């Protein structure tokens, strides 16, 4: 749910990074946090276990600049990827404006990608969202690892609509900002459309 505040002249949007466990969702946020200017970002909050597995969510507020005199602020969230945290994943999707699916390119993780993608579709549906209409980007992460599937093989299984597809190596930052930009653009385009229709 985009929140537009005319008093403080701010647009606030919520973007959720979804995907299988150990796929690199937190690493995406960590890279954005590490490389953004201090005045652009807030604190990176990680609710994680002692072994650094996401327990509830990671959260990073990011200010990208101004659009038509309004500060554009994006609240980036990750979900816990492990299968048994489904109740938490569902909660975090509430009020989402855009979703990034971080897929793990390794051959052995293909089933986990498919299960997580199916889970995303189900959880969006449970909140009343139409997956075909929500701003969405597909990131193919871990492209630098051995035994990864080709982009063609991955997209054949994982593409659901005409979403942007970005190849990434999250710890090195490859594709990280491109992914964020791809989804943020769609969120702002949606805002324009809904303003026009309102």
């Amino acid at each position, binding site marked *: *749910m*985009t*929140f*537009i*505040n*005319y*008093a*403080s002249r701010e647009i*606030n949007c*919520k973007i959720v990074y979804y995907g299988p466990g150990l796929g690199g969702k937190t690493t995406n946020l960590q890279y954005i946090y590490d490389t*953004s*200017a201090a005045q*652009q970002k*807030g*604190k990176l*909050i990680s*609710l994680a276990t002692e072994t650094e597995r996401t327990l*509830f*969510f990671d*959260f990073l*507020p990011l200010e*990208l*600049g*101004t*659009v*038509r*005199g*309004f500060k*554009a602020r994006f*609240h980036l969230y990750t979900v816990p990827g492990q299968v048994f945290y489904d*109740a*938490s994943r569902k*909660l*975090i999707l*509430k*009020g*989402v404006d855009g979703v990034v699916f971080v897929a793990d390119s390794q051959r052995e993780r293909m089933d986990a990608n498919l299960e997580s993608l199916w889970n995303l579709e189900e959880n969006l549906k449970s*909140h*009343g*969202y*139409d997956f075909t*209409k*929500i701003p969405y980007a597909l990131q193919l992460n871990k492209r630098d690892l051995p035994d990864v599937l080709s982009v063609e093989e991955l997209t054949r299984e994982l593409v659901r609509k005409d979403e942007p597809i970005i190849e990434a190596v999250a710890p090195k930052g490859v594709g990280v*900002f491109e992914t*964020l*930009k791809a989804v*943020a*653009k769609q969120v*702002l*385009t949606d*805002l*324009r459309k*809904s*303003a*026009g229709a*309102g």
Partner: protein
Amino acid sequence: MPEATMIMYEEEYQQIKTILSKLRTDANAKMVFLIDKTGQQIASHGDIGNLDTTSLASLTAGNVAATDGLARLIGEKEFPVLSHEGERDNIHISVVGGRVILVVIFDERSSLGLVRLRVKRASSELNEAFERIVNKAEQEKAGLGKRNTPFTEISDDDIDRLFSDDGL
């Protein structure tokens, strides 16, 4: 989409700020925040200092969402009030009208009983304010009293500039 965009205009924002300011004084509290259920901060009042209010908003919404999940597991609709007691400061969290979260931070100069009492009255005023916001949004949607919004004029260049400005 399940939830429409929430639009806060200056007039309603000032009304809400007034309610929060009064609550803070009446409850003898340090700070008062209003947050939407998705974790966006709507307004605040009090001695914020260096407090990271964005994180506070996000964590509070997560806390309320998790507690709501727990409530449903045991067959309750929700737990509308949460209270956390610390050594010096305490937090009182309540859900207003099922849509926004009111957070009061207080210390030994106040008490849980006083905060609960004052929150009850402020909640009903806030609920009325949000009814007005929702009605206004519905009227505008229906084309009545439509205001000029700058967002219809967002161009592709505006969006591209947003990213190029920061070297993204």
